[in-house]
């Protein structure tokens, strides 16, 4: 049986891992590489490394950081986000260390490049980043570079329905960093049946359990709330009884070497 996933998120700003609160306050955590090592040891199902200042400054992907993270020899699948502008950027990111890419600004600027990325990497490698909110009764999609929210574009909905994108990261950006605040109504925002990853304001096992019971949710992503204690990820997993979750594991790479 395919398992639902818990994805550990590392948010990077100016080269440092940070806690992000509501897309506007950032508190330093330390070196991204250390967090990646921790998530790998704790048995995260995937790691998302998102560099949030790359596209806004036209910097392209942070290949230097990606290379340093890659050199750690992580045995956990790695998703990279940040500064991916073209199919070639996406290909380079995968060649450097990532297994999948999360795209945001490309959805606004050049959706054709998403199709080209998928032609080369396979559509299963492409995830859409969708910071959403509900204003009145309308779902709004945030362009985080301009700070302006808008309804979904026809092109986005077409690409999601056509399978050009394999999963959508639904971000409750207004409630990001605030415990228990993820708005589950956002999970009904997309009219197509693309598998969803929920992110933003997820902090508690009971809340995760409710979200993961939705048939549309393939995974939950957690950032800040993995940073407050050692082995937080295993603790979440141990409390998600009865769900199709891979059991908590402790990875000890030194235990296993070739004869």
């Amino acid at each position: 049986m395919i398992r639902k996933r818990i994805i550990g998120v590392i948010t990077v700003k100016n080269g440092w891992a940070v806690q992000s609160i509501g897309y506007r306050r950032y508190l330093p955590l330390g070196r991204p590489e250390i967090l990646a090592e921790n998530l790998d040891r704790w048995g995260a199902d995937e790691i998302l490394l998102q560099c949030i200042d790359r596209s806004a400054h036209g910097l392209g992907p942070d290949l230097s950081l990606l290379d340093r993270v890659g050199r750690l020899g992580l045995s956990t699948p790695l998703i990279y986000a940040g500064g991916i502008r073209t199919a070639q950027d996406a290909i380079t990111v995968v060649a450097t260390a990532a297994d999948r890419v999360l795209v945001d600004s490309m959805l606004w600027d050049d959706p054709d490049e998403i199709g080209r990325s998928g032609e080369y990497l396979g559509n299963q490698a492409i995830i859409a980043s969708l910071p959403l909110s509900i204003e009145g009764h309308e779902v709004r999609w945030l362009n985080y570079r301009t700070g302006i929210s808008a309804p979904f574009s026809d092109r986005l909905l077409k690409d999601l329905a056509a399978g050009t994108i394999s999963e959508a990261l639904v971000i409750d950006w207004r409630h990001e960093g605030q415990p228990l605040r993820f708005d589950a109504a956002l999970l009904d925002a997309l009219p197509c049946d693309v598998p969803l990853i929920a992110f933003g304001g997820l902090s508690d096992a009971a809340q995760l359990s409710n979200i993961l019971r939705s048939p549309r949710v393939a995974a939950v992503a957690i950032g800040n709330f993995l940073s407050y204690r050692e082995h937080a990820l295993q603790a979440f997993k141990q409390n998600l009884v009865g769900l199709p979750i891979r059991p908590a594991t402790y990875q000890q790479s030194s235990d296993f070497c070739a004869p």
Partner: protein
Amino acid sequence: MSRRTIGVVDYGVGNHASVWRALHGLGYRCRISAEPDVLSATDLLVLPGVGAFGAAMEALHRHDLDEYLKHRSRDGMPLLGLCLGMQLLADASSEHGLTAGLGLIPGNVEPLDQRRWHIGWNSIEVTKEDTLFRSSDGQSMYFNHSHVFRAPEEYQVCITRLERAFPVGVRRGNVVGLQFHPEKSQNSGRVLLSSIIEGLCR
């Protein structure tokens, strides 16, 4: 026992760096190369790959590696295909039109018929008495694919299940293919990788 050297076939497609790091982490010497002389000086070849079948076969051909891989594996050199690298071992794929594969293990690559993709962790079931796979029965591995290698049952070594079962591990003598990513499957992947490498090189 001497330290084994693994050749990672570099044809410009895929995640060679991740594979190299996983093998290096297991204590193997690794050579990433497209040069037959370099690859032939190793104990086992790993054929990684991500992306589309046709583009990958074209890249193998462009690097003159398709014939090389066929000859070396028929000469008995161990070969392990990972993910797309496993699919390339097949006779042909229908992804983006019919494309011939390496033809090292009979069967064709077809779209998943149950879902669009198979992404995430799923457990494998070992269906043959094969010492290379035995200890991995029931272990969870990381998958990320949309097509399946439909090999005849005699070449299937392990399966996984969505609504229905489908093959995810194939073997024909010294040639083994895995649909999942053992290099990204944490300890369960490391155990299987090591077992296959040691078993094929014995």
